């Protein structure tokens, strides 16, 4: 509108987007460089993350856990951190697990990649590798979420009617003959039902299964808010939400929950639940991807807040000039 060239304040209240974009790229890249990656930011795990970690650690050794991994590479940024820390914990606790997806045909390829990488990492550290059939079964993809989840609730053996190779005999055998699933008659028999998701397939899981088994969730920050009501109403037992959730879990894997270290100091207190306690993860990596990305995240948010502040200041000053 104004014929004369815009004042400084008018300028800063509509900076060219591209400049913001460029700054964002720079700010998010720098903290990823190795020299920064060693830093562990201080943290206070959120209550729902604490509940999640407690549920996970209180599954008795040797029991089976169902992992419904409904995400693909496009949300790798958050879910990769989730599944890595979940697998590390499960494996170090020697739990068996059945992993599958109801959301996306590409998901199996993705979680296989992470099972391999975590296995490789354990191999390097000289720990026991997880084997298909003895330690876990990979049931891959079930089309139609609603139907599948209904069926898992009503008759898990009917829907999991799949075959995997038994290394002993080299034959394809029904998964329910495997050590992992032989004791599972209904979904209530599993130690924990973990949903790793980036989509609202999670709501369906709650609708169908929350009354039949212990459901916990690891989800992206987007799904986060819609999971909290379920956590409040007790339909899910714990939630690790977004990058922060991944960081929280990694942090508790390192320091435990209500767990006194050698000096007797409790690094992560769970207030109100003093009687409950979860040990740190004994073997394998704890602090990893999540914590690495967390630095860049801080930088990015700082930029956003700065931009908003500057914009508002600009707006006010410009107004005052006009008046």
């Amino acid at each position, binding site marked *: 509108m104004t014929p004369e060239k815009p004042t400084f304040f008018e300028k800063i209240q*509509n*900076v060219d*987007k591209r400049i*913001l*974009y460029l700054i*964002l790229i720079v700010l998010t890249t720098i903290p990823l460089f190795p020299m920064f990656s060693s830093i562990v*930011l*201080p*943290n*206070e795990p*959120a*209550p729902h993350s604490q509940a999640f970690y407690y549920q996970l650690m209180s599954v008795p050794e040797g029991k089976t856990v169902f992992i419904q991994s409904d995400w*693909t*590479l*496009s*949300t*790798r*940024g958050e879910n990769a951190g989730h599944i890595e820390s979940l697998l590390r914990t499960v494996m170090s606790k020697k739990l068996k697990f059945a992993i599958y997806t109801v959301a996306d045909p*590409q998901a199996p*390829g993705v979680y296989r990649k992470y099972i391999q990488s975590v296995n490789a990492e354990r191999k390097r550290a000289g720990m026991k590798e997880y084997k298909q059939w003895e330690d876990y079964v990979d049931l891959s993809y079930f*089309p*139609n979420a*609603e*139907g*599948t989840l*209904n*069926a898992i609730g*009503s*008759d898990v*053996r*009917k*829907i999991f009617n799949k075959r995997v*190779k038994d290394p002993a005999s080299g034959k394809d055998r029904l998964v329910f003959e495997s050590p992992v699933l032989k004791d599972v008659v209904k979904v209530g028999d599993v130690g924990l039902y973990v949903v790793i998701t980036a989509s609202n397939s999670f709501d369906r899981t709650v609708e169908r299964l929350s009354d039949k088994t212990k459901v916990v969730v690891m989800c992206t920050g987007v799904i986060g*808010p*819609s999971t*909290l*009501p379920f956590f*409040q109403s007790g339909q899910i037992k714990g939630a690790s939400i*977004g990058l*922060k959730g991944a*960081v929280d879990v990694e942090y508790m894997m390192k320091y435990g929950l209500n767990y006194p270290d050698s000096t007797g100091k409790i690094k992560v207190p769970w*207030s*109100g*639940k003093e009687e409950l306690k979860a040990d740190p993860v004994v073997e394998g990596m704890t602090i990893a991807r999540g914590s690495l990305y*967390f630095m860049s*995240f*801080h930088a*990015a*948010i700082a*930029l*956003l*807040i700065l*931009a*908003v502040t500057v*914009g*508002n200041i600009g*707006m*006010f000053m410009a107004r005052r000039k006009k008046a």
Partner: protein
Amino acid sequence: MDFLAQVDPRVNFWATQPGSVEMWLKILVGLVISAGAIFALIKMPTRGRRPVVMAFTFLCGLFYVLLWIWPSPLNRKPDEIARSPAEGVSFLLADTLPIVATITNILVAILLGLGVYSLIRLHGGRIIKRHADRGFSVVLLVSMLTITVFGYLDWGMRTFGDKEGKLLDIANWGFVNLGADLLFDGLLQQMDSAMFSMIAFFILSAAYRAFRIRSVESTVLMASALILMVSLLSAVVVVWNGNVTNLAAAMNVPLANPSIGEAGALNFLKISNIASWVTSFLQTPALRAVDFGIGLGALAMGLRLWLGLEKGGVSV
């Protein structure tokens, strides 16, 4: 109804020996019959049409409504026989569910051809009409064709040519497998992630533009957004909460954690608690109201579609 129940005996009128002549015969008969049915429908007088469509819709909806309203069997074991006809129905419904559940996907998959047809018509048309962008249409059609060919070859090799699962190891891959992997994992999925991650940039610019203190609404929107963001920065949180603790110590007021309903006087000053308070006592109820509304909307719409009450627009 044996077909629906898919029960023993494992071979009956509905379930035949795989690959047997009988099977192919029955499939053929099925095709012929349904072709006849389609012909009959084509000859159907105009006023008969709506009822037919409505009947299909109603019956399909009825399945789930029955599943919901019919008493479900208690403590059922797979190998048990129903005690009463009523329970028999509930068993049948339970057994049928996995089958009915797949129908939608199968139909949508069959319909996909329509979409592909529209794509080819649009871009083929551009090429023929020598549209300015025809070069890109060529690119589109070519890449479509390539991945289709590679995809099917790769699938065929893995499904039929690879009984002992050699191809799970990249070391045994041939040209086709590499090509398929390059196109899918190397390009398609990376482009997905690229497009997805681009949202971060848009969030930045959208926030910069929209988060201005203009009206009460935009202000509360901004305020709660900022509170939540800051509460995610654990470094800030630890420092902030640390200061609150020191302050409390100085005034020797006890502190505790409201996330479970406990609270000390100064506690609400802790950023993490402010955030969790906002989410539990303002966000949750507000959004729950939205949920109820949407749920009711879906319920009402579902009823209208199921009972064929929708007129105009989409009158199925």
